[in-house]
């Protein structure tokens, strides 16, 4: 195997649920896989603070269980994909609305749970009682 093939096999094992490459210490690769997931979960917590806070101390556990085997796409996208599969409510729901409305071409709006998020000229405003 070339170096390129071996590096690709190792990355697949570490972030995409690929098989363990020959000759490596399985326990150490497992620890590395876990460390990468924990780092990723911290980065998503920074990009999506309300989403992470809605899980409290369980965030790391819940996010890493979901992200296991899914290659990282960056904290913003990872958090968004997680939120789409785990629709949040409360402040985390508003955070998701602001993100989605902000990405659309202005003027755009979204109304959910008695909160209205409006994108006017690229700036998102939120109306209603934000939890």
């Amino acid at each position, binding site marked *: 195997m*070339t*170096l*390129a*093939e*071996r*590096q*690709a*096999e*190792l*990355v*697949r094992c*570490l*972030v*995409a649920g690929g098989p363990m490459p*020959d*000759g*490596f*210490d399985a326990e*150490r*690769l497992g*620890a*590395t896989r876990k*460390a*990468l997931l924990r*780092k*990723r979960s*911290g980065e998503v917590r*920074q990009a999506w603070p309300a989403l992470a806070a809605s899980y409290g101390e369980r965030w790391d556990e819940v996010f890493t269980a979901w992200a296991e085997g899914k*290659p*990282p796409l960056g904290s913003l996208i990872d958090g968004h994909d997680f939120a789409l599969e785990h629709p949040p409510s409360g402040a985390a729901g508003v955070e998701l609305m602001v993100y989605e409305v902000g990405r659309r071409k202005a003027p755009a709006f979204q109304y959910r749970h008695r909160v209205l998020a409006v994108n006017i000229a690229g700036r998102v405003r939120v109306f209603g009682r934000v939890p």
Partner: protein
Amino acid sequence: MSLQGLGMGWRPEIAGFVAGLPGLGFVEVIAESLPPQGLPWTLADLRDRDVAIVPHGVRLSLGGAEPVSAKRVARLADAAELTGAPLVSEHIAFVRAGGLEAGHLLPLPRSWEAVHATVANVRRTKDELPVPIALEPIAALFDWPDDELTEAQFVTEILERTDALLLLDVANIYANAINRNLDPVSTLDGWPLERLAYVHIAGGRMSGGLYHDTHTDPVPRAVLDLLPAVKPPAVLLERDGDYPTGAELLAELDAIAAAAGFEEVT
């Protein structure tokens, strides 16, 4: 111009704290985090005060088997121009392969094949850079099964063939020694310290029987104790999250200065 004294990793979350350090020798900024249109004003202010700024790349993947991306190299060169940097730094590692991003620095097999691949990428990068480059060996929780060289030999071969400088991270030295069941001080033998540009230091902690180089925990005493053996001209503290209070960071910087034999700067 060479780096001197105590430095701190500049991060947006602690920008004001870093700017307020009276004896600050230099800062490092994550090269990929710099907006291409210009420096954030707190960094521009440091540059105007003649505090050296070192762009620190984390995504070039110099140890990747594939040629380094010309676009990424151009951005690192732009970052050097923008900051007026005396040098830039990157890692002896790879971060992507086969179209997948690992999201972190991964270790290379310490083989001749990896030496040649890394040397080719460092040369491609150096050709485009306006300033010298320092290369940092990383901390890893595992080794490849077919290592032919020790870490010191592997790094020496790469630095000598590319005439690059050394960025030695004493926390990485500590982490790798502990995780390989070696005495940290003894693993300092054989490193090309004559090429040393500066030293990194960072915190970490034991978890699951392994030392994790987290950058989000305090710097352990045993890591500080490696500084006198290295006698660095310049040391930079990296902190990447779970930021403590300003007072705690100051105490940590003072402890680093004392261990490195610098005057207290805070």
